[in-house]
C-alpha cells in the first residue's frame, strides 16, 4: 500500500529540511511594520461603513432598514423618519423622497464587515471605506452613530435639512437626471 521509501527520502530529505530553514533566514521577510508604516489596503477592502450624500448634500439613506435586515450579525439599527417640505415644524428635508434615516447606528462590536448590508442598500447610501483601525478602550464608543458614519460635506454641498436642489422630485435624483456637477463619490471617502 505505502511505497517503500527511497534512500534519498530516508536519509537526505530530513537533512535537506535544515537547509530550507537556514536559507530562509537570508530571504526577504514578509512582515509589515504596521503601526509605524501603514500600507494601503486592497482597493475593495471591507472597512468602516460610510453613509453617502447626493451632490447637493442631501443624504442618500432613505431609512428602509434593508441593511439592518440583511445584517447576519444584527449590528445595524435604523429608525426612519419622514421628510417634510414645509419648514414650519422644524424637521425639514434630509433626503430626496418620502423618508430618511433618522437614527442610524452600527455596532462594531458585532459587525463582521461582511458587506451584505452594502449589497442590500437600494440607493448606494451605505458603502464601505478602507479604514480598518476600529479599536477602542470601551464598548460604548464602538457603537457608531449616524454622525460618525455620514460622509463629510464636500464643496458645493449644503448641510441638510434643505429642499431638493437637483430636481423637482426624487425621481430625478434616482435616475441621475440632474445637471449639477456631481463631485465624485470616491472623493467623498
Amino acid at each position, binding site marked *: *500500500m505505502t511505497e517503500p521509501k527511497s534512500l534519498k527520502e530516508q536519509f537526505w530529505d530530513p537533512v535537506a*529540511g535544515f537547509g530550507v530553514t537556514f536559507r530562509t*533566514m537570508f530571504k526577504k*521577510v*514578509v512582515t509589515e511594520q504596521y503601526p509605524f508604516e501603514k500600507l494601503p489596503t486592497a482597493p475593495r477592502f471591507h472597512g468602516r461603513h460610510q453613509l453617502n450624500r447626493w451632490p447637493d448634500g442631501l443624504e442618500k439613506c432613505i431609512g428602509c432598514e434593508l441593511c439592518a435586515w440583511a445584517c447576519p450579525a444584527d449590528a445595524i439599527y435604523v429608525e426612519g423618519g419622514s421628510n417634510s417640505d414645509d419648514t414650519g415644524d422644524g424637521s425639514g428635508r434630509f433626503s430626496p423622497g418620502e423618508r430618511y434615516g433618522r437614527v442610524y447606528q452600527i455596532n462594531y462590536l458585532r459587525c463582521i464587515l461582511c458587506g451584505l448590508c452594502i449589497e442590500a442598500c437600494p440607493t448606494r447610501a451605505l458603502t464601505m471605506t478602507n479604514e480598518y483601525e476600529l479599536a477602542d478602550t470601551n464598548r460604548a464608543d464602538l457603537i457608531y452613530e449616524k454622525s460618525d458614519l455620514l460622509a463629510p460635506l464636500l464643496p458645493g454641498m449644503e448641510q441638510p435639512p434643505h429642499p431638493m436642489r437637483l430636481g423637482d422630485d426624487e425621481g430625478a435624483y434616482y435616475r441621475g437626471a440632474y445637471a449639477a456637477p456631481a463631485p465624485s463619490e470616491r472623493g467623498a471617502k
Partner: protein
Amino acid sequence: MMHVMTTQILGQVAAVADDLSAFGQDPWWLILVKAVAIFVVLVLLTLFNIWLERRVVARMQHRIGPNVNGPFGLLQSLADGVKLALKEDIMPKAADKVVYFLAPVIAVIPAFVTFAVIPFGPEVGLPFTDRTTPLQLTDMPVAVLFVMAVASIGIYGIVLGGWSSGSTYSLLGGLRSSAQMISYEVAMGLALVAVFLYAGSMSTSEIVAAQNPGQEYWLGVIPVPTWYALILLPSFVIYVISMVGETNRAPFDLPEAEGELVGGFHTEYASLKFALFFLAEYINMATVAALATTLFLGGWHAPWPIIQLWEGADSGYWPLLWFFGKMFMFIFMFIWLRGSLPRLRYDQFMAFGWKRLIPISLVWIIAVATIRVVTLDGGIDRSYLLAAAGVFLVLFLVLFFIGDSGVEEEETARAAEAEVDAFAGGFPTPPMPPGGAVRGAALPMTFADRRPNVISDHTTTEATSQEDKP
C-alpha cells in the same frame, strides 16, 4: 581489564588532584565577585537567548521577530520578565503550599550552581591588583559528575512542581518531563564516559587542558585533531542529541508541546514562580551548551587556525570570546532544530533514547575502553583495532535500522492483504485491521473504486428488494 582501567584512572585522578592547586586560593571577596558575576552573566544570557531565539526562529519563518523595545528589540525579554513579575501570583487551593513554593526554587538553584565548575578561561591577572586567578569559580576532581548530580536535583523541582500543584495535568506533565530528562540523562552520562577515559580526569579544567596539547601535524601539514568532538565523534553526537532531550527542547519538547497541551508541569504556576521555571529552563540550555563546549570543543581555547596565526589568542581575557562563541554555536543549533523539526511522538522519543542512544553509547564505550587499554599497554597494532571497531559499529547500526523497517513492512503488508468494501454499510468507514484495534499509527483510509459497479449494484439491490416483497 576493568581492574587495569580503574587503577589507571584512579592513578590519573590522583595525579590530577595536585594540578588543581590554582583553585581554592581565592580570598572571600574574589569568590563573591566571581559568584555574582556568574549569576549576572547567566541572567543576562537568559534574556539574550530568549531574544536571540525569537529573532532567529522568526527569520526562519519569513518574519522579523521582536524589534520594537530597545535597540533591535533587545529589551523585549526584559519587558516580558517585568510583566511576568507584576502579574498576580496565584496559589491553587489544592496545592501543597510549602512544596509548591519550593519547587521553582529547587529547579532554578541547581541551574545556577552547575556553572560554578565551567571554565571560562585560563588564569588571568585581576585589574588593579597583582593577583592572578582562573576564570572559573571552582573546580574539583569530580566536577563533571558534580554537574550531572546537581542537574538531576533540578529534575526534582519539576516533579515536585507538577505534584504539588494539585492538578492532574500538572502531575502528568511533571511525570512526562522527569521521565524524559532521566532517560536522556543516562545517554548523556554514557556519552561522557569516553571523554573521561581519554582525558583521564573528571575535572573540567583538566579536560580542557587534555584537549589542547601542543599542535601536531600529520605529514607536516594536516593538523592532528585534538578536540574530543572529532576524536570521539559518536560520543559527541550522542551527547548533542541527549542534551536536546535533557533540556526539553524541540523536537523533544513533548512535556510542553504548546500545540497539544496547556502547559505541562507548570500549568498551575503564574507570575515570578513561573518565571523561575522559565529561567531554569534557559539556564539549563546554556549549561548543556557550556558543558558541550568544555568537554568536546576544547573549552575556552581558540579554534585551530587562530592560535597559529596569533600567539596571544589563548591568554588574558580573549578566551571568553572563544568560549561564548562556541557556546552560541550550540545555542544556534538549538534554535535551528526548533525551526526545522516537527515534534516527536512520545513512544518514538522514548524508543530512540532507550533502544538507540543507550545501546550505541554502551558499545562505543567498550570500543573506546578497549582501544585505550591496548594503546596504553601496547600489544596489538592500533589500526587493526580501529578497523575492527569501525566494522563492528557499522554492522551494529545497519542491524538497528534494517531490523526495524523490516518489521514495519511486514505489518503494512499484512494490513494491506484484506481489501474491505468501505461502503458496505452505506457510509464510508475505515476497515478494521486484521489484528484487531490499531497499535501505533493507523493506516490511511482507502476506499475501493465503486464507479464501474454502480449500475449492477443498483439492479441487484432492486432485484433483492423485489424478491423480499412477496
